[in-house]
């Protein structure tokens, strides 16, 4: 095969919708020498793009996925390959109607039109539905279908027109060469080598196999999605074009039905999960249709036929309409349902652009092209970062178990706090036996089993019943317990002990440590040994990259502590910026150390019982850390708090964690110590104090002044994002983060109606129900929400446009179709509970 250049700036492997749109966006951003290579023939090389049903609902609970889809629709429209058809989601059950209410709230939050429709309305839109089967639905006018193969061709051609792209079909990659951890070249099966600065794997279901050539791991699994095409449909005989009638999602049966010319396509996410490994996909030559269209397994689909027939009896019951095509189509599933994007942690210059579906592909391609070129993208895609996966989360077993669990949830009713059932108990705290004996209910984070609350605290419910808000709705109370509120009060009244083993801990050691961390962190890092610094970490544009604490343990030894969920992404960010001269070493101490927190007004009394070291106000000031001895164990104590109470984080070697826990627990009895879960630590106590969480309030989309976390001065030393940050400080922020109190009575006047609670991501509206969007187009919604037992109100955090962010202003949050008043209690920095931080002092 000729036509392959010797050198390229970027080699893109895979010419499906992802690879084509990625080539296009790189070319538009000025990348000059791009090579797009695929083993199959163009324009349909045989991947999942070729058999996709190609319809798009820009409706998701996830803001990120909705924005990527909206951006993709915009791009498809520009290319002239999008046909708007409208789309329905129909409900057969009351529970589903509730879920559709939630989906309408999400649609409203992210700026999509949604109309509640009755069975009669639906019958008018889709005359072939038996409306007696359903109880209602939602109509989304923006839904449509796309010609994804044509879109890919147009994008490829545009990149070629710009003189930036060489396209090579029918050429299979045999190897990716890596030198010193950096990608070097791509070698084709016939032995040609293309040297490249960057290589992007856009290979859909084959991505893990290709990544393996370079020693990298892309955690996704090819999964079967069954689809049949039935025709000819008499009703469609006179329609023009691909689609005239709205697409129907029959949510309760996990199916969709959509017109495709003279046929109707019926697809299912309800059959048993069928996964296979990328190595087991047939070659192009061996495939009857294409490698990603496997032989249909009728017995898996049979139960769904009945459901489809029930909904559309006349259309699908027509004896003259036959099943003309039926496939087990392969799609990519990942262990957490999100795409897998970004530079692989294993190999510099090797990028994954994988596990993207048609609906979000051009949006993803644009975002990753920006990320590759500028270091960040306009749309925040940090949740898709391939660096997020811990090693066990990339294992074949974990990927398979989670993908199988997620498959049947494709159209499922998934609670925002819902926990996975599979692949649990992987990372256990040294205190796990203790917390387990206390009846801990575990939520998983980054593989860690974290006590969310403790059933052993149930007796506190009676004690604090006046301060605990009960939730009567099963949905609101699911994955929640009033015990969380009781633990909260117990901690604020006495003292709480928190298992914080999921912290990610990195030690930074070496002569260059200080100057390195100065450059990484916004806060001044040239502090005395024994100081603890909380600092934002910014990207080049001044957006939030991370927030974490850094302890100075010695002149050339610092310790970074960050959340487990973002631990590996933060680790990659820090590792990527290490000086090349070897003057700094970053050591991951996460598994070596465990952490627990002791907080509450009686924390000092308790600590005095277990240590003879000075823990007095004068001897152990806020914001400092030092080694103390508890029993016979040396512990690094750090006097900071994420819950707004006097107390310490205690860092112990993992082998002695349970021992220290026992000492604290026994000594704590006389002070009313309660084990306290993450429900308090991460939600109720945090929000009462207005403490921001990364991924919720803090994202690359908001800058430091907008979060209300700017310091009075900016240090003179240079740091990443400084220029942008200085510029952000010169003008009023576009939006400001606020703390809201959320009322108990709905605004719609439905007195006596069951109270509903926001659970997160609910849209913030004017009291007239109007959507609020700031000058940068960012909508207002609850970034976090939870109860505030110590302030007597449900609380929320969320951004408001600068002019609206005024204390006392009243807005509305929408919960399950009802509006509740949300009053601005705090604008910017500050907290509704203990605003002067008296509890932290002393």
């Amino acid at each position, binding site marked *: 095969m000729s036509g392959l250049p010797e050198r390229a700036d970027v080699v893109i492997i895979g010419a499906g919708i992802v690879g084509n749109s990625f080539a296009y966006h790189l070319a538009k951003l000025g990348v000059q020498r791009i090579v797009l290579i695929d083993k199959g023939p163009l324009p349909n090389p045989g991947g999942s793009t070729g058999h996709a049903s190609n319809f798009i609902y820009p409706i998701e609970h996830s803001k990120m996925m909705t924005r990527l889809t909206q951006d993709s629709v915009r791009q498809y429209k520009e290319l002239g390959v999008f046909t708007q058809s409208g789309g329905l989601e129909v409900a057969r059950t009351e529970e589903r109607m509730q879920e559709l209410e939630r989906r309408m709230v999400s649609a409203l939050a992210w700026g999509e039109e949604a109309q509640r429709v009755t069975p009669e309305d639906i019958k008018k839109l889709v005359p072939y539905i038996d409306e007696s089967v359903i109880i209602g639905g939602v109509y989304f006018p923006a839904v449509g279908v796309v010609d994804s193969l044509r879109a890919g061709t147009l994008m490829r051609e545009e990149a070629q027109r710009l003189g930036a792209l060489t396209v090579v079909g029918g050429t299979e990659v045999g190897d990716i060469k890596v030198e010193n951890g950096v990608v070097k070249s791509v070698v084709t099966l016939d032995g040609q080598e293309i040297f490249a600065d960057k290589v992007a794997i856009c290979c859909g279901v084959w991505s893990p196999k290709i990544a393996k050539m370079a020693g990298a791991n892309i955690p996704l699994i090819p999964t079967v999605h069954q689809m049949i095409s*039935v025709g000819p449909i008499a009703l469609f005989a006179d329609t023009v074009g691909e689609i005239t009638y709205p697409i129907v999602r029959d949510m309760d049966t996990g199916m969709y039905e959509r017109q495709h010319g003279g046929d109707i396509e019926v697809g299912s996410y309800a059959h048993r999960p069928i996964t296979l490994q990328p190595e*087991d996909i*047939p*070659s*192009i*030559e*061996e*495939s*009857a*249709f294409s490698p990603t269209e*496997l*032989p*249909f*397994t*009728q*017995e898996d689909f*049979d139960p769904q*036929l*009945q459901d*489809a*027939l029930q909904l559309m009896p006349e259309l*699908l*019951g*027509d*004896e*003259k*309409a*036959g*099943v*003309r095509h039926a496939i087990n189509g392969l799609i990519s599933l990942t262990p957490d349902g999100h795409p897998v994007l970004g530079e692989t942690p294993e190999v510099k210059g090797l990028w994954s652009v994988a596990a993207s579906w048609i609906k979000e592909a051009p949006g993803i391609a644009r975002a990753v092209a920006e990320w590759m070129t500028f270091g960040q993208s306009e749309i925040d895609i940090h949740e898709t970062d391939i660096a997020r996966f811990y090693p066990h989360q990339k294992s074949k077993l974990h990927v398979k178990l989670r993908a199988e669990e997620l498959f049947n949830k494709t159209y499922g009713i998934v609670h925002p706090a819902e926990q996975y059932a599979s692949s649990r108990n992987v990372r256990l705290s040294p205190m796990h036996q203790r917390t387990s004996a206390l009846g801990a209910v575990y939520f998983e984070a980054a593989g860690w089993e974290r006590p969310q609350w403790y059933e052993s605290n149930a007796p506190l419910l009676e004690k604090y019943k006046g301060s605990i808000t009960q939730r009567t709705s099963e949905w609101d109370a699911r994955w929640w317990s009033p015990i969380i509120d009781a633990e909260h009060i117990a901690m604020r009244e006495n003292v709480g002990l928190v298992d914080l083993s999921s912290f990610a801990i990195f030690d930074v050691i070496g002569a260059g440590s200080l100057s390195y961390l100065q450059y990484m962190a916004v806060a001044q890092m040239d502090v005395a040994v024994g100081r603890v610094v909380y600092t934002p970490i910014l990207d080049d544009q001044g957006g939030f990259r991370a927030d974490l604490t850094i302890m100075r343990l010695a002149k050339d030894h610092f310790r970074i502590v960050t959340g487990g969920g973002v631990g590996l992404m933060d680790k990659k960010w820090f590792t990527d910026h290490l000086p090349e001269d070897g003057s700094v070493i970053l050591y991951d101490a996460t598994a070596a150390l465990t952490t627990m927190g002791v907080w509450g007004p009686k924390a000092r009394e308790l600590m005095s019982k277990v240590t003879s070291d000075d823990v007095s106000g004068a001897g152990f000031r806020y914001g400092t850390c030092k080694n103390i001895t508890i029993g016979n164990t040396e512990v690094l104590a750090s006097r900071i708090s994420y819950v707004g109470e006097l107390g310490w984080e205690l860092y112990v070697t993992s082998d002695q964690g349970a021992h220290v826990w026992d000492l604290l627990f026994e000594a704590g009895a006389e002070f009313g110590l309660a084990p306290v879960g993450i429900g308090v630590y991460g939600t109720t106590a945090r929000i009462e104090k207005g403490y921001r969480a990364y991924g919720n309030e803090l994202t690359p989309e908001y800058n430091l002044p907008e979060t209300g976390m700017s310091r009075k001065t900016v240090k003179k030393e240079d740091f990443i994002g400084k220029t942008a940050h200085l510029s952000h400080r010169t003008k009023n922020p576009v939006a400001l983060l606020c703390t809201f109190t959320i009322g108990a009575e709905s605004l719609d006047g439905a007195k006596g109606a069951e109270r509903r609670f926001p659970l997160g991501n609910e849209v913030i509206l004017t009291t007239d129900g109007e959507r609020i969007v700031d000058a940068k187009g960012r909508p207002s919604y609850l970034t976090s929400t939870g109860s505030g037992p110590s302030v007597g109100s449900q609380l929320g955090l969320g951004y408001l446009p600068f002019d609206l962010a005024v204390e006392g202003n009243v807005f509305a949050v929408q919960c399950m179709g009802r509006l509740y008043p949300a009053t601005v209690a705090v604008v910017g920095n500050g907290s509704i509970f203990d605003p002067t931080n008296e509890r932290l002092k002393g």
Partner: protein
Amino acid sequence: MRVLVCVKRVPQAGGKLTLTDDKLAIDTKFLGFTIGPHEECAVEEAVRLVEKFGGSATVLTLGHADSVEQLQFAMSLGVADAILLDNGGAEWGPISTANAIAKVVEEMRSKGDAPDLILFGNEAPDSGDFQVGIRVANALDLPLVTGVKGVEVLDGELVARRESGAAIELTKVTLPAVLTVKEGLNLPRYPSLPGRLKAKSKPINKVSPQEKGDPSKLVQLRLPVEERTGGVLLGEGPDAVGKIIEVLKELGVVAR
């Protein structure tokens, strides 16, 4: 009319075939299963005859229990019931196969349910040995027409059409009879959804056949050397249009 139609479960080829390590079978790791195109026409013809003259059609196969998939496919098109001669999936030769099928027909006869017409595909879709239909006709002492591409039934007689070189032969046989049919006999229908659902509850009569023993046996499979027919470049861009029209005329796709 009482019709018996015989089919065989075979791998659905479409891509490059690979053989199992012992070279005695096709590797079906990536393959689905189907019946051959001749047999699809046989099933379609059986259903049409029943639709026209009344009666019922039964589908029969000999093979692995998984062949239920193919029996249900035939029943989803309108066949009333099925007979599965479950031999555990062993590859029986044509003598044993024909013998087992003839026994079933004899049993049907003894129950007063003798088929008026027994349909086969012209040859087995995989092994292609052109024998089973002929042997069954012989064993049952029934008239036989092979290579049939047209069927007309009038007053208990059947006229079968077959293409022989440049001529068309019409053969009249009395019923009961055996036909082996070829693709092109009709245009088979697709299964409808109701058909598919009904097929699930149609009866499958399971029989354990006895192997008679074939003097011939499969020694080894060998894949033919791939013949690459090189494409012909007719031209590029608008210049090619004239030549494409010529080719289309030659093929008879557009009028000369």
